[in-house]
């Protein structure tokens, strides 16, 4: 579903993504991990067509992101870490807008379905500016899913969600992958990654340093323990935790 070939993105002298070669299969839930500033968000922006690569190619569902961007974007649902919503539209109007853009105006009944499952019923006719952070996050999820994308790209999905909503999102993501939707998820919440991931990729300083299932990563890191231990072990060469914390 996702294929990157020698993907590189430079910002001036800085190489944010360095020669990334990655393949994510259809129906797979791929978790992308990395320390702060490792290049996760840049990779996501390249995949969703928000940034132009310096070198390399990206293919989504067989389409080139650079050359067939409209086709690519029509099969992607993207949820950034701080999603944009039109404050002066109501929740229902926003979802109608999304359906109109994706030329799915006839399928308005989906709006009620998604409002129901995201527990936004009763709030749908209020302006989005009145929504709490969690409600906005859920509306962003609804807007990314309502057009039935083949690929969901999610940056930090659990930010601001209460435990009930977080559980709902996790179950929805599992359901979607069973239906054949690919999920590309970037997070710092390692227990979530451990719980959901089919495969995990770890990026550091723009390079993909390891990729595989949780078990494979444990073997690679030669660590028995949680994903946190594995992650810290694999990234320790570049970042060491200071042991002397006294001032």
């Amino acid at each position: 579903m996702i294929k990157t070939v020698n993907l590189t993105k430079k910002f001036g002298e800085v190489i944010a993504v360095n020669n990334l070669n990655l393949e994510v299969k259809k129906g797979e839930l791929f978790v992308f991990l990395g320390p702060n500033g490792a290049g996760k968000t840049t990779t996501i922006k390249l995949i969703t067509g928000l940034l132009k690569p310096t070198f390399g190619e990206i293919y989504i569902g067989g389409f080139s992101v650079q050359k067939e961007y409209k086709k690519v974007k029509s099969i992607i649902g993207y949820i950034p870490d701080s999603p944009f919503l039109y404050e002066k539209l109501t929740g229902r109007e926003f979802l109608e807008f999304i359906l109109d853009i994706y030329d799915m105006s006839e399928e308005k009944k989906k709006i009620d379905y998604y409002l129901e499952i995201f527990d936004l019923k009763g709030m749908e006719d209020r302006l989005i500016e009145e929504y709490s952070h969690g409600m906005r996050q859920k509306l962003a999820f609804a807007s990314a899913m309502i057009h039935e994308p083949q690929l969901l790209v999610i940056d930090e999905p659990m930010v601001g969600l209460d435990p009930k909503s977080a559980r709902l999102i996790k179950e929805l993501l599992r359901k979607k992958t069973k239906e054949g939707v690919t999920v590309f998820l970037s997070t710092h919440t390692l227990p979530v990654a451990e719980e959901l991931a089919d495969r995990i990729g770890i990026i550091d300083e723009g390079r993909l340093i390891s990729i595989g299932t949780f078990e494979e990563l444990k073997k690679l890191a030669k660590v028995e323990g949680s994903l946190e231990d594995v992650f810290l072990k694999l990234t320790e060469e570049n970042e060491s935790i200071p042991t002397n914390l006294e001032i």
Partner: protein
Amino acid sequence: MKVFLQIWRYKFRQVKNSIIFYRGSWFKVWVVTLFSLSFMVGMYILFWEGFNFLKILPLISTMVINRLLYIFFLLIFFLLIFSGLVVSYSTLFAKGELDFLFSLPLNYQTLFTIKFLESAFYASWAFLFIGFPFITAYGVFNRVPLFFYFLFLFNAVPFTLISISAGVLITLLLSRIMALKRWRIYIIGIGILLIPIFYLIYKFVSLPPLSPNVFTMVKQVFQHFRLSQYPYLPSFWISKVLFSYLQKDYANAIRYLLYLFGVCLFSCAFLFNLSKCFYFPAFSNSRGGVQVKKPLKKFNLWKVIEKLLFFLPSSWRGMVMKDIKTFLRDPRQWSQFLIFFGILGFYIVNLRYYRFIRLSMGFKLLVSMVNLAAMGFILCTLTIRFMYPQISLEGRRIWLLNLSKLDYAKIVWEKFLLTFFFSLIVVFSLINFTNYFLKNPPYFWAFSFFMIVMISLGVSALSVGLGAAYPDFSTDNPAKIVSSFGGTLNFVLSFIFILFLVSLNSIPFYLWLIDKSINKIKFLRFLRLTLLWSGAITFFAVFFPLKYGIKKISNIQM
């Protein structure tokens, strides 16, 4: 096209919702409406009186007024290019909405067209506010038929789009080629604006010694502004359409109308096609990510300033240093400051060239008073723009400051004193230059110094006090903070304060030097009285807003 219309439909829906669900201050809406209308009426009266004044030039008054129309459209042309440049950077590459829209399956050209039209809409407000009164005054003065106004509106659309296209083209090219950051765009924009402004000011001040013969003098002046008659400029075409219509030369009117519409279509089509290859790469460039910058050098100036502030307690010093650094490191802040006062400074420095100002003491002091008021109004605009949002911009961090040794009263006082100090430095230098170049008498130096101290104290206290009384911690956008109820109140009160202070103190000067109804002794007595009143008013303008601000912010629940 379908998607294009759908997006506009939802944009209009947002406007409709903003009105239906409006829960803001109606006072603000009324004040803004009233001020806008008053401004337009004031401009109309000013232009009409100006045209009337030109009647003193027998035979050539019509020619002079018509030439002014060419110059007016030329100035608007430059203004629109600059507005287009600055506004288009915000609309074409704005964070948030654009990231969202680019993630949708939309054609880049469709997105560009939407944002281009938005830029044109936002950038042409000034044209509406100045152009409408000017054309109405011109029309009423010349008793033109009603169709003239429709013709103006009809031609104003392509004229605006051509001018904005030029600004948008510059933004697009610069962003694409140079991967510019916003502050660089501002600096280039300022440069582009300043070139024609300085050119026009230079034209004014570099007039050769004018002939005593009024006809030759007018000829000399217009010879100097012949750029407005340059036949390849859209400002010339729009003027020509209107004149040709009034002279019933319809063939020529249609000819220039076709020039306007033809070039408008060409420039829009050119931009539309250019956007196909340029817009997305430019957008991508604008998302520069983490540019590695050289670490900020340990700037010795900070140490110098810190040492100069030795008399302050360390908590105050830290706060002052933070505010100074934040201000100076954000070019959006000081660039606007620089533009306003740079232009004013340039004008003041060139006052010495105006020989006619020295003709009478009354006229000279009138110019000085107008300068004083202009400085006050600009200062008030800047304190509202920069100082009013300061407490709000501390945002949710304000508890951090409050946990330190600084209580809210001290925070408010620190911001007030800092604003007052910097305001005073800037206006003090400008007012001294005015007095120097106009060779004003010593008593006027003393008077103007007293006035600027009063004005700086009043506007600083109003901005900081009301900013503390009506904080908005929900946003980091200063423009949004300023447009709240408190910001509007600040604007109204500061405006009234300056107007009252300057008008009150102009009375004794008027009675002595122009009306000549009082002698110098009575004038000095009268002036002492008005200054005393000014001091009292300033005391209230400082004391009450600060007290109110401190009280409100101290009781705020975070």
